[in-house]
């Protein structure tokens, strides 16, 4: 009986190990060196949000991914360096009201790779106007 249990345990370990390893790899691939990972949901919001990404002295490059999908409203995303200089922006708009039964999705995505980024707080500014939807911000530093 003991041998049977041992055998079952070994077999289970054999099958589970690769799954675990691949899950780890996926997680590392997604979030390796992540300094900021934020998911923000808007429910008819018009409040300006500023997401800070702290960049240290030894950072050689930074990859910033902003991905937003909205169902209604108007959302502007702006990226600023620590000196306040704008490094990109985009806006997405869905003219349906948040109470509307119809569904219309609009998606905006920005990828920025910044070599030798300025040290300090980089800012991802979110300017929503009656926005329902969500946005994810992922900053990776190496």
């Amino acid at each position, binding site marked *: 009986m003991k041998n049977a249990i041992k055998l079952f345990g070994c077999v289970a370990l054999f099958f589970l190990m690769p799954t675990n390893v691949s899950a780890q790899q996926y997680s590392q691939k997604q979030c390796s060196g992540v300094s900021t990972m934020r998911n923000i949901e808007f429910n008819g919001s018009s409040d300006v949000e500023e997401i800070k990404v702290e960049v240290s002295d030894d950072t050689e490059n930074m990859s910033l991914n902003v991905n937003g999908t909205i169902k209604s409203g108007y959302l502007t995303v702006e990226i600023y360096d620590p000196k306040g200089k704008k490094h*990109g922006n*985009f806006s997405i*708009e869905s003219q349906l009201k948040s109470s509307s039964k119809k569904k219309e*999705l609009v*998606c905006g*995505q920005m990828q920025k790779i910044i070599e030798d980024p300025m040290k300090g707080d980089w800012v991802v500014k979110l300017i929503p106007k009656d926005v329902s939807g969500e946005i994810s911000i992922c900053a990776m530093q190496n």
Partner: protein
Amino acid sequence: MSSRVLSINQSIIVQLLSILLCFNSFSQSKSEPIINGKLQLDSIWEPVVYLSHIPTFNDMFTMSNEMIIAEAKIDTSGYFIFPTEALPNKDNLFRLHVSKKDAPSASLIIGGNEENHIFFIANSRSSVFIDNTGSVGLFDKYILNGYKPNDDLEAINEIIKLSEQSDTVLLKKQFVEKTLNEQLRHIADTSSNAIVSLYALNNSKFETTYLSNQLFYENYLEKWKNEDSTYFRELRTKLPRQEKSSSTFWLIVFGLFFFILGFAINYYFSKRKSKSNNSHLKSLSIQERKIFQLIQLGKSNKEISEEYNIGLSTVKSHVSNIYSKLNIKSRKEAMDIK
């Protein structure tokens, strides 16, 4: 042997057919204006291409369903076509994009290999051909043919790319940026196409260099003063020039107005004063006028009494009458009357 001949014949027929096809598409593109092209897409992309109208340069990176004015299927060979007859008669800026299969049609991806859009200029009579078949990503290397202003637009995009990739050493970066911005201003100054010119100017960081190049911007606005497109209206709202210049103009006008007004008021009152003095002088008697003339010459009461051979007290009495009739209090005031 016969099968070899057959295969040679087949390849000749295929070649002839493709030449015919090319000729047909060429003659078609010559005869009627179209936006067409060939896109090579991965399986992650929906084989549909969307055309959006960009009303201002501020909207270049804005995405909404309302901006999409047309969509076209991409066939199995990668070809798509849009008619241009519904486009405006004047040049406008357009964006062409594709979306991922799991994403909404109104999707904008900025940066990276998956950047999903390009911009170009077109109007109802222009033909544009887009080809990304030499591209590794979606639009990292593409050909945009057919309408000349788009060549200049591409040249500007190359300069913008250079300025984004410039050196990491701050001083060198600033120098490169300055040089590239000057290049963009040069294109803006020399281009005969309004949108190309404005696109170059818009990317030359004109808001920060306005004060150091004020004359350039004033001449620029003067050159395009008859352009009333939304693109130019947007520029005019961004530049402080008109407001500043008009306020200076009005300041000068008001200054001149008040100067002339002051001069006129002064002239009016001096005239009035001299008129009133003249009327008072007429009220003097003959003897008093004679004495008044001597007072104006600076003579003393004693000198006047000796000159007219009259008593000093009589002179004093005449002088007192003169003062009261002319409403003055001293000899000095009497000497000032002309």
